[in-house]
């Protein structure tokens, strides 16, 4: 199984607090990997170290390695812009820009130097289709993204991330602000997209992890407790903590 991302002894600390402790794991190409665990266990911090979004926090300290296609993204000559083009991110709260639907999707390509209208038109249509939003918005591409519903906004954010042609998509609790129907749509989308993209999804919803993922990692207090095929982790957890968490004894 080809490995897309590999962490080696990754430790992320904010000030004196270690949010992630010595995590070593492999994330496989074109598979969906779910990261589960109770609030504050470091799930978000872990995926944010995959596209170096933790760098935006001032007192962060990172040791160990994160390899993307075998290259250390924390290496001195690794370009963050290239990294974030390859590794897109969807956030917990849908965060479309207060611009038109079209401009939201075209934002990334424009940043990376595409300005021809015909090309942008094509990119916008293609990625709105991939995000299963095209038929809902094709007649109002110039209206504000803020007028969309929460679920539509989140799919727009997915289209926006896809438009820069990433290879990996990180999702930080993408459904936590959405209703069940919108959640079902996003989950369906995650399954479809996993054919072409490597997806890492953080969730505190265990059923969601079971539904959408191929692999599941259980994180507790910054440590990787258990990691394996979702089926195995859920049906036959090796670690006591995992079993307690999955059966709802703590959370």
């Amino acid at each position, binding site marked *: 199984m080809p490995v897309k991302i590999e962490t080696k002894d990754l430790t992320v600390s904010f000030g004196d607090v270690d949010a992630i402790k010595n995590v070593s794991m492999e994330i496989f190409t074109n598979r969906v990997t779910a990261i589960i665990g109770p609030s504050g266990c470091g799930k978000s911090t872990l995926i944010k170290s995959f596209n170096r979004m933790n760098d935006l926090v001032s007192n962060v300290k990172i040791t160990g390695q994160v390899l993307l296609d075998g290259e250390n993204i924390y290496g001195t000559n690794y370009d963050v812009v290239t990294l974030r083009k390859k590794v*897109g991110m969807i956030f917990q709260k849908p965060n479309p*820009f207060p611009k038109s639907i079209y401009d939201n999707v075209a*934002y*990334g390509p424009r940043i990376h130097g595409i300005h021809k209208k015909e090309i942008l038109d094509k990119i916008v249509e293609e990625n709105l289709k991939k995000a299963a939003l095209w038929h809902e918005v094709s007649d109002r591409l110039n209206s504000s993204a803020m007028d969309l519903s929460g679920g539509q906004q989140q799919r727009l954010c997915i289209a926006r991330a896809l438009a820069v042609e990433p290879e990996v998509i990180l999702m930080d609790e993408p459904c936590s602000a959405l209703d069940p129907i919108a959640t079902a749509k996003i989950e369906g989308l995650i399954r479809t997209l996993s054919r072409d993209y490597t997806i890492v999804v953080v969730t505190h919803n265990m059923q969601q992890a079971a539904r959408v993922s191929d692999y599941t990692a259980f994180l507790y207090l910054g440590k990787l407790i258990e990691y394996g095929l979702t089926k195995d982790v859920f049906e036959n957890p090796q670690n006591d903590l995992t079993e307690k968490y999955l059966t709802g004894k703590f959370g």
Partner: protein
Amino acid sequence: MKEFLIEKFLFASSIFSIIVVTLIFLLLFSQGILGFREISIIDFLFGQTWQPTSLVKAEFGTVPLVYGTAVVTSIAMAISVPVGIAIAVYIAEIANPIEKEILKPIVELLAGVPSVVYGFFALVTLATWIQQLTGTNSRLNALNGGLILAIMVIPTIVSLAEDAISSVPREYREGSMALGASKWETIKNVTVPSAAPGILAAVLLGFGRAVGETMAVLMATGNAAVVNFNILDSVRTMTATIVIETPEVAFGSLHYHALFGVALLLFLITFVFNYMAGVIMRRYGRTGR
């Protein structure tokens, strides 16, 4: 019962402020309108000469005054808008916490300096610099007034624009950075456009201050009611005219009413600008272009 009283008190306060503004407008209007029994509105708006005390023929053309206000305000806004927004962006997005701690109070302090102090500085120091640089004959001129006004308006714009930029949700910045945008690209394409309504409000408040400012421009511009289309010549603003002439005018005279007319015109100009800005904001606020 307590709830009820608080509610009524708040309601009364808000009504009170509306009533005050309305009464001021009515006073301006009722007094200003009286002048137009003798002065034609055409002459008032398009007359080239403001000579209210001439014994030969009193003239009440506001063109030189409107010109004075327009040129001084334009200079002030042309400088203070870009500089003010730049400083606001720096403080909100780029400055480290220590720089922020130092810069913000300084800006707020500048906003609180009385305008007569600025006027004095313009009269004594700035005017000399301008004269030395340009060799102009009129020490006190439109450029001098515009520059000092710019310095006065910048803190207003910085303070409000900085608030607007700082309150742009962090999620927008993260969304942009996660797409591979640099910090500068994020500021230019997401943060500042998202704060546009607030920045526009800041600019408008600055504009209001510039148009309405009296003491500093009175001291800085030389107060000659002429239209020369040269920023190195003296001008006289509408506000300065009101201040200079009101204390000496006979109560209830034609000149007295004409000054109210000038005040009314000033009021209408600011009102129209505010209204237009409101329209622009409603139309473009939500798509950010």
